[in-house]
């Protein structure tokens, strides 16, 4: 039941219907282009397992906690996706976030700066770190693995030095601590939810209309409506849950509304998705990741792109660091240490970003970060110790990397690299 249509210039193409669209999607999945599918399935399965094992898993309180807990990993993973798209790696992102977190905490507490100067200072620190890393990789040609491994060690030291050998610095700036602890009011929660839904619907329909006007092939209306409807249901349900009272004792401290960190995650999700998908810069990042030589011949400044992804990577690590310090209202020598980096790489890879470069989307960081957060949170609720959690998370990362490698092989076999 496929009908052909004539698109721009008279090239005959198949006009997709809802059925053929789904069929095509399934064909791509079978051909090794899995995207976020395994992560979404994993998220559902894991949530069901933990939800059945512990009632508290599906409580509103725990649901809100998941966002706050995963924020640092999600932000770092967003930056890492840029680095991974070029087939590079940034092992120092964890401690870079720690260093930037320390910078903001020291400026706030020891130097009495306010949040609106301290936060930009930390972000600039992140940008400088990324620029230096990128310069070493792009201009000197040192493998990013080595550069960032060295930086991983060095930043750990910088963090210790900044904190005067290992003291803990608390932050008492109310606005700063609210970032990753407090919630929006119920009214603002709903306003943002509606803005998000309407914005997404407008963007989708507008893109479709402008393509149709030029006589180009558009996605079938059914699929577009399904996408908008799906997102709307998701956002409305989440907002309903999050705007319920979830405090154990509401009389003392009422707890309701969407966590403030959610719109911040949403903002960066939209921003970087736009940059990667709709700007020439984003296109060039994919091109360099896919075929560096082709990109060079097309006149793309490969070195500058390479430096820029490290800058974005460390910038997002700085945001992650700020969120971590805000969450704990303090910074210590282990902020951004231990499992944070591996969780972030894991989030990106589990979400569907390829370690081989050229394939990945920002949404991968959010979905992969959710999977990691659910594992961490669910296993804590079930009373497993840290050792078991590390083992399970490690295994899941290994599974995700295997899926990536196998999908690549399958894709090569079906001529769909």
């Amino acid at each position: 039941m496929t009908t052909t249509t004539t698109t721009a210039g008279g090239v005959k193409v198949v006009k997709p219907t809802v059925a053929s669209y789904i069929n095509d999607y399934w064909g791509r999945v079978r051909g090794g282009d899995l995207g976020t599918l395994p992560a979404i399935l994993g998220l559902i399965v894991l949530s069901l397992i933990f939800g059945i094992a512990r009632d508290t898993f599906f409580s509103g309180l725990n649901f809100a906690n998941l966002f706050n807990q995963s924020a640092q990993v999600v932000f770092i993973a967003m930056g890492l996706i840029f680095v991974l798209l070029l087939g590079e790696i940034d092992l120092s992102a964890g401690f870079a976030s720690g260093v930037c977190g320390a910078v903001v905490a020291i400026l706030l507490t020891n130097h009495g700066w306010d949040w609106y100067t301290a936060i930009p200072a930390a972000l600039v620190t992140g940008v400088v770190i990324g620029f230096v890393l990128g310069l070493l990789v792009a201009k000197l040609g040192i493998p990013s693995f080595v550069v960032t491994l060295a930086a991983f060690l060095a930043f750990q030291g910088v963090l210790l030095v900044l904190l005067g050998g290992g003291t803990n610095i608390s932050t008492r700036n109310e606005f700063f601590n609210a970032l990753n602890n407090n919630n929006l009011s119920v009214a603002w929660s709903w306003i943002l939810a509606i803005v998000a839904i309407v914005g997404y619907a407008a963007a989708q329909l507008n893109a479709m209309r402008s393509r149709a006007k030029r006589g180009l092939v558009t996605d079938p209306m059914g699929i577009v409506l399904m996408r908008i409807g799906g997102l709307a249901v998701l956002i409305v349900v989440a907002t309903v849950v999050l705007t319920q009272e979830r405090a154990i004792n509401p009389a003392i401290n009422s707890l309701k509304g969407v966590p403030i960190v959610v719109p911040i995650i949403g903002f960066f999700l939209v921003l970087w998705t736009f940059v990667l998908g709709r700007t020439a810069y984003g296109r060039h990042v994919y091109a360099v990741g896919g075929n560096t030589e082709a990109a060079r011949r097309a006149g793309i400044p490969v070195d500058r792109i390479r430096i820029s992804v490290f800058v974005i990577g460390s910038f997002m690590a700085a945001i992650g660091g700020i969120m971590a310090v805000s969450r704990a209202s303090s910074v210590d020598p282990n902020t951004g240490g231990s499992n944070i980096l591996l969780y972030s790489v894991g989030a990106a890879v589990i979400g569907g970003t390829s370690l081989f470069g050229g394939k990945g989307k920002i949404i991968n960081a959010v979905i992969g970060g959710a999977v990691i957060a659910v594992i961490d949170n669910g296993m804590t609720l079930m009373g497993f110790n840290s050792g078991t959690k590390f083992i399970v998370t490690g295994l899941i990362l290994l599974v995700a990397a295997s899926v990536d490698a196998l999908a690549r092989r399958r894709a090569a076999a079906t001529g769909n690299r």
Partner: protein
Amino acid sequence: MAATPLLELNGINKGFGPVQVLHDVNLSVYPGEVTALVGDNGAGKSTMVKCISGIYQIDSGTVTFEGNQVAIHGPSDASALGIEVVYQDLALCDNLDVVQNMFLGREKKRGIVLDEPTMEQMAGDALASLSVRTLKSLRQLVASLSGGQRQTVAIAKAVLWNSKVVILDEPTAALGVAQTAQVLELVRRLADNGLGVVLISHNMNDVFAVSDRIAALYLGRMAAQVKTTDVTHSQVVELITGGRSGNIGLPPEKPADFGGDVVDITPGGDK
């Protein structure tokens, strides 16, 4: 037949350190014609293409384009003139789709946003002008295309920019019989659309199938540039392997060619 060449190279010299790769090479490319550039491995074909496309700078000699002498200092100069090269390895990104590849590095924008509909339309027009009707979708990833389709995309990419000269480096080397025929047909169509086409090939069948002129390089010298109809298969092979064939080609080598100082290397001649 157009009398003035579109692109004319005169007395081009190019060396890398002590190694002189091109010696006083001349080449004329006429609009509406396919000029086949042939030569053995190491004859200097690739170097010559890279000189035209601006990847290498020429040491001496002149390049004339549409009657005006031009200097090509980089790939962007060449593309600004309307010279496009389709490299042997195609230089396509597997992880991007057809339209994205065709506009790579030269994306159309509205403000800072990519203007996808315009690009898709232009890509479709370019493919249609080459009578390509075999793609399932313009949004197909290049990874999922066959070798011939990739070649088609690479060639369409070259004609997208109202280019006047298209240089194809061994476009049929990796293709099967049917796909080779398709690509050769496409090459012919480029010339019929009024472009000057330079076809680099090792395959004599391809050369004789589509070319109007044959330029044979031999050890960095232009052995001959002749009309395809004036020569036979074996004459071209002789030009490639020996630099001359009968009364065409390079003059026979004389000792004077080596600068006059003839070193006698005859065994025992030094006594």
